[in-house]
């Protein structure tokens, strides 16, 4: 019987492991999923190897769920391989969907990242200054490592993607309904983000406390204020990405009294989440005077990193200009 079940693969690229966790966290529901499908590849949990995937017929996997951004040659090769073998590819989670937190590395390049990670962090102990090399000779053997890129990519910048499961990590109900739709053949049109196409504010419990006219006089970071647990964050002078972010997360951050950070990415109408937020946010600065505007703008510590926290690689500019990093 098992060979008639749809084959499913899970893979991870540049990610933190949270998206793998989101699948394990399906708890008893994972058993239902496991009973309904045949998991043919899942490096974090099962001992299948790349050669097993290579041996499969093209298009023989019903769906591959790939989490993480793509930032080195091995990840690129693996996702291209999985694309060939799969009828459907789902970008699972913010990093795969938008570039995610690893995508913030697009403010730097390989050299600055390596220097920081392997040489200059306070906790680094590396007196010989060893950094990863693509090829190195050890005891007469040549060892190879994947090539690390200057730029982090979202999955759809590398391969064709059929669906996006948003979130850092995607919540359980969205994953389950994606599986259900997959099994029942009720998936929406290709390219869809599998979460409601409305803004986070639309679903937010605090939306009623948002004043008719929001006025920002100074921007504060969440730890600088004693946050009222009921009131709209923007009304408290704290940046909340809700207006420019897709709904469907179940308000995990907001109910923990933390503003939305934008992990679901934009709605279908918006191309560039950061620019859209910038536009909305600038409109509510409480002054028309150029000098005062500048003063308020200066109270935002890291606008690009905040507005594009999860979406820098998939933004219009994609990265800081390489020429300006070098």
């Amino acid at each position, binding site marked *: 019987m098992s060979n008639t079940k749809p084959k499913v693969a899970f893979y991870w690229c540049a990610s933190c492991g949270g998206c793998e966790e989101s699948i394990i966290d399906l708890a008893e529901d994972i058993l239902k999923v496991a009973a309904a499908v045949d998991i043919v590849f899942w490096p974090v949990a099962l001992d299948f190897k790349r050669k097993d995937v290579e041996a499969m017929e093209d298009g023989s996997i019903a769906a591959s769920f790939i989490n993480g951004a793509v930032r080195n040659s091995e990840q690129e090769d693996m996702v291209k391989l999985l694309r060939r073998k799969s009828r459907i590819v789902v970008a699972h989670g913010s990093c795969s969907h938008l570039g995610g937190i690893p995508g913030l590395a697009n403010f730097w390049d390989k050299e600055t990242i390596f220097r920081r990670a392997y040489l200059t962090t306070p906790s680094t102990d590396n007196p010989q200054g060893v950094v990863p090399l693509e090829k190195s000779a050890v005891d007469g053997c040549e060892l190879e490592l994947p090539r690390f890129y200057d730029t982090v990519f979202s999955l759809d*910048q590398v391969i064709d993607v059929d669906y996006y499961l948003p979130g850092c990590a995607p919540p359980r109900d969205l994953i389950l309904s994606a599986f259900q739709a997959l099994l029942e053949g009720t998936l929406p049109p290709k390219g869809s983000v599998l979460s409601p196409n409305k803004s986070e504010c639309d679903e937010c419990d605090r939306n009623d406390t948002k004043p008719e006219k929001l006025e920002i006089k100074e921007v504060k970071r969440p730890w600088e204020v004693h946050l009222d647990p009921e009131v709209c964050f923007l009304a408290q002078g704290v940046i909340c990405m809700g207006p420019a972010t897709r709904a469907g997360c179940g308000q995990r951050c907001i109910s923990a009294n933390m503003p939305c950070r934008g992990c679901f990415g934009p709605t279908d109408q918006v191309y560039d989440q950061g620019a859209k937020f910038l*536009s909305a946010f600038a409109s509510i*600065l409480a002054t028309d005077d150029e000098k005062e505007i500048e003063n308020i703008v200066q109270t935002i510590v890291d*606008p690009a990193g905040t507005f594009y926290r999860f979406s820098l690689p998939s933004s219009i500019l994609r*990265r800081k*200009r390489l*020429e300006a990093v070098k």
Partner: protein
Amino acid sequence: MQEEPFEPNLVGFLCTWCSYTGADFAGTARMTYAPNVKIIRVMCSGRVDPQFVLKAFREGADGVLISGCHPGDCHYKEGNYRTLRRYRLLIRVLEQMGIEPARLRLEWVSAAEGARFQRVCNEFTEQIRALGPLSLNGGKHEQHQA
């Protein structure tokens, strides 16, 4: 072969009520000025979504001009104040992205100020000429070919 001299490629978003009319006036008055700014007419400078500006840079603009009515004169009352706020925030983001703030210019040009429009175009063109071309690199070249 000699390299072609750099000719700035500029995009200008002009509000229809003041700046576009001002540009038109410069034309009907036969003022000559640098032809580098490719004009896109919008209803109000406040209609210029920051996505438009980023898209222009992405598609090859070396500089972007946004021009609207003088403060207090916006046909929609406060569209240009919004533009001003967005502009101040956007140039900070551009700077973080490695794009010189001078590549985005905001000007107020009224319907009667053809000469001012002429001066803005000339100045901006020379300013960007001095800055040189904007090469945006999405990093795509790094991936190896499938």
